[in-house]
Each structure stands twice: as structure tokens, then as C-alpha cells.
């Protein structure tokens, strides 16, 4: 059990009589970047709030580094840093003062504030009021606040929200750095798969409060079976020929027929078969469903 930085066991959470999270069993391995994916309103933020004990979970359902959260609240929070929804910063204080205030709350050295500012590239804006920061700067300050205690586990709720492409790449590199060089564990939520498929080692997909998929990125990729897409001058006839030859037709429309990919040779055979039956083949290609579509598939099925 202690191999997981976060483990939830059949976690269920209700707001009144509305179930927001149901039977959720997250397993976030230590040292991983865990992409927590789901459309808006799927229960991601609620789950993160539960992991921070902001919302009280039922006993023995949430474990942080193997310890039950409700009975180890302070000890667990000491090992976590978080950025939940919009970064929570005091707009009447400067960026630096925000960090110093956090240092006071955490009982750590105030020199850490300057260190964090340079890490997120806000040194020049250190003495500017945080209320006057741009959205991206606020987001970076939020990340600096989450990182300041040097926590083993980071919970980032849509951290690249409002960042420009450069900023997104910086955050991405920072996350990779933190896990590979410093051995941190990161749970990062997003509603865009494309955004985290490059960094995440593990993925959990949640929709309407239920976990639909959990595993490594490659496990997710293997879910999508490659297809052979064929374009011909006579789609109906091509479909019939392929079906009688025993190929598995996945989809068929006016322009293309798609069959399950079984191997390169099989693909060649299909081509020959069609040509021998007098059909002109315009194109034949192997296609892998991209993760984005897969994600849509998984979330819309439910």
C-alpha cells in the first residue's frame, strides 16, 4: 500500500443527495506524474479537495503515503503542496509578500521566497502587487506557493490554465524536472488530454464522478486498436468484398471503409483482393486513433 503516494479505496462523496464522486479508487504511484483527466464538472476538483481534507472523506477511504488522511491530517498536509482552481493569492500584497506570508504559516525560512520567485520567473515582479499580475503570472505565483515547502507530493489543478505556449512548456519541463531529478510525485488535473499526454506517466480518466480508466500512458495507447482506412471508387462493393473475405469492418461511410488492422501483410492482401475484384483503390492507410478521440470515446460512453 505504501508504494502509492495517493490511494483511495472506493471513495464515495455526496453533496446532499447528489453523488459527486462514486467508488473512486485512485492509485498514484510514488515518483509518477499522474494525469487526472475528465471533462469540466467530472469531479476532479472535488477529489482534489478531498485529498487536501478540505472536504471530509469517509473513514479509511483516502490514504496519503499509506496513512489515513482524517487521522493524519496535519502530517499528510505537511507533505503536500497544492494549487486548487484559481490560485489563491492576496491581491493587496506583493508577490514576495504572498510567499513570505506562506513561509510564516509553514514555519520555513523567508529566504525561500526569493528562491521561489526566481524559479517561476517572477523576480522582477516581486514587489508588484499580486492583484496587478497577469493571469499567467498569478498562475506562476500559485505554483511557487505550492512548491515553497518543498513537498513530496504536488496536487496541481489545471496548472497551465491561462498560460501562453511558452509558459505551458515551462510548467511541463518543471514538472518533469521535479519528478525525475527530485523524486516528487505530481497529480495534475486537466480537461485536455493533449496537454498532459507528453508529461504524464500515468493517467486516470474520470467522468461523472466515476473512474473510467486508470493505468500507464502506454496502457491507454494500447486501448486504441489501429485501423486500416480504405478509400475506393465504389465503397458499397468494397465493403461487401471485404466482409465476405472475413475482414472486420469497424466503420463505413461514403468515402472510407475502416477495418481492423491485423498486420502489414493482411493490409497488402486486402488491397490485392479489392484490385482483383475490379475496384480502384485510391488510398489505403493504417491509422491509430489519437488519444484525444480515445478520451472522448471513453468519457462519452458513460
Amino acid at each position: 500500500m505504501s508504494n502509492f503516494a495517493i490511494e483511495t479505496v472506493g471513495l464515495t462523496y455526496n453533496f446532499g443527495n447528489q453523488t459527486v464522486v462514486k467508488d473512486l479508487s485512485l492509485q498514484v504511484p510514488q515518483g509518477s506524474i499522474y494525469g487526472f483527466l475528465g471533462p469540466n464538472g467530472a469531479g476532479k476538483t472535488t477529489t482534489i479537495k478531498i485529498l487536501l481534507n478540505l472536504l471530509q472523506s469517509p473513514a479509511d477511504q483516502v490514504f496519503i503515503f499509506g496513512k489515513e488522511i482524517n487521522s493524519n491530517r496535519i502530517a499528510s498536509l505537511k507533505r503536500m503542496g497544492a494549487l486548487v482552481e484559481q490560485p489563491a493569492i492576496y491581491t493587496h500584497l506583493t508577490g514576495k509578500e504572498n510567499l513570505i506570508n506562506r513561509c510564516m504559516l509553514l514555519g520555513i525560512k523567508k529566504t525561500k521566497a526569493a528562491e521561489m520567485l526566481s524559479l517561476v520567473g517572477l523576480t522582477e515582479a516581486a514587489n508588484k502587487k499580486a492583484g496587478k499580475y497577469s493571469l499567467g503570472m498569478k498562475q506562476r505565483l500559485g505554483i511557487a506557493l505550492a512548491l515553497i515547502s518543498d513537498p513530496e507530493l504536488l496536487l496541481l489543478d489545471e496548472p497551465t490554465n491561462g498560460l501562453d505556449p511558452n509558459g505551458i512548456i515551462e510548467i511541463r519541463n518543471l514538472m518533469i524536472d521535479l519528478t525525475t531529478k527530485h523524486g516528487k510525485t505530481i497529480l495534475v488535473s486537466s480537461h485536455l488530454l493533449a496537454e498532459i499526454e507528453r508529461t504524464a506517466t500515468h493517467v486516470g480518466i474520470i467522468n461523472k464522478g466515476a473512474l473510467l480508466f486508470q493505468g500507464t500512458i502506454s496502457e491507454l495507447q494500447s486501448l486504441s486498436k489501429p485501423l486500416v482506412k480504405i478509400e475506393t471508387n465504389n465503397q458499397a462493393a468494397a465493403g461487401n468484398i471485404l466482409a465476405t473475405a472475413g475482414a472486420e469492418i469497424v466503420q463505413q461511410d461514403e468515402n472510407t471503409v475502416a477495418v481492423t488492422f491485423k498486420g502489414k501483410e493482411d493490409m497488402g492482401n486486402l488491397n490485392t483482393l479489392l484490385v482483383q475484384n475490379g475496384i480502384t483503390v485510391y488510398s489505403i492507410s493504417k491509422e491509430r486513433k489519437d488519444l484525444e478521440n480515445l478520451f472522448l470515446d471513453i468519457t462519452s460512453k458513460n
Partner: protein
Amino acid sequence: MRSLYISLTSEFYKSRKTLAFWAAIILPILICGLIMVGFYSGSEKILKANYPGLALWGQYSGAALGVMGMLILPFYVMFMAFSVNNIEHKNDTWKTLFAQPLNKFSIYAAKYLYAVMLLLICLVLFLLLTLASGYLLQVLVPKYTFNDYNPALLLTKFYSKLFLASLGILSVQFVLSLLWSDFLKPMGLGFVGTIAGIITANVGWKHAYLIPYSDPTLALRVTRVKGAALEDFPIFTQEIWVSLTYAAVLFVAGYFILSKKNIK
């Protein structure tokens, strides 16, 4: 205890640039300063009345205490209780605050305690400035009789009563500001409460002391027991107990409101 201390330091750090904090300092300076200027420039008229030391001090400190008890203090308390909570409402920082590895109750208690401390700072400054400016006036206008009587004990007792009697209002306003993030609801209710308090206290309704808003006014009414020294009035009178009870009950209630409120 460590959590409480840490949270309290953070409260001071966070709000040292806000009006609520500075008002606690500026308000006494401003009001005492104005009264002093009035007593300095109008000294000839006041000297004609030939007040003995005690009466002169009474006139002098009463100018501040009178307005304070009825109007300025309740309004300052309302504004301050609002501001202390609004710093978290406005920035949506309640959740971050409670995600820190600190005891939840300490975080809340520190906020409440901070509001109480601001009130204390404000009233202590009033007391000290009244005394200091009185003696300064004596130097500036030697004909004054401020030196004939030492009002330190009397004023300390008055301001102590005022402080204790305001804790009820402070707690009501604190909880209201905790409940609602907007300015109008706690302010509106506080305004109505204050007016009701002034009216009930002044018409002498016998249950007026049950309204926390009338407690400061009532607390300043001291009936002198025959034969006893002037300073010999009790601090813990009926309205003080009412105020303290309100404070205690609402302090506990506030914590439950806050822990429920976070569920969102």
C-alpha cells in the same frame, strides 16, 4: 498553541497594509487630536466654567467616550470584523488557508483573536492618548486644572468596560461577515442593530442589556454608590456578562459555520 501563534502572526502580516489595521491606530489619534485642539483653541470659554480637576477630566474624556460608545465604536467594530474576514472572501483564500498543515480551529481562533486585538489596540490608544493629551494641555494652558486629579484608574476602568461590552457586537459582526462575503448584509444588519441599541438604551427599556448593540452605551452608565469613592464601580455588571456570553457562544458557533461553509 504553535498553530495559533503562527496564524496570528500571519494575520498581522497580511493585514498590516489594510485600512482595518490602520483605522485602529488612526481613529484614536484623530479623535483625541480633534478634542485636544478644541480644548486648546476654546480654552478661554472652558476656563470660565471654572471646573475642578475631576469635572474637567470628565468633560475632556467624556467627549471621546460619549461618541465612541454610541457611534464610532460599533461602526469601527462592524467594519473591522468585515475586513478581517473579507481578506479571505475576496481572494478566495479560505481553502488555501485550511489546506495548510495547521490546526483548523487555531486558524479560525487566530482570526477572531486578531479582531479582538485590533479592538484592544484601538481602545488602549484612546486611553493613553486621552491621558497624554490632557497632561499636554495642562502644559500648554497652565490655567487648566488637569493636574488636580489623576484619572488613570477611572479611565482605565471605563475603557475596560467599553472593551468588554463591545465583544458582543464584535462577535455578532464577526459571524455575519463570516457568513456573507458581501459588505451590505453585515453592515446593514449592524446598522439596524446599532440604531436599535441606541434607542433601547436611551429610552431605558429594561431588557435593553440583552441587545449586544446597546451594551457599550449601558456599560458607560455608572451609578455612584453613596459613600463610596468615585472609582469604586464594578466592572462586571449585567451588560458586560451579556456581552461576554454572546462572544463565547458566537465564537464557538462561528467555527461550525466556517467548517460547514467550506463544503462547496
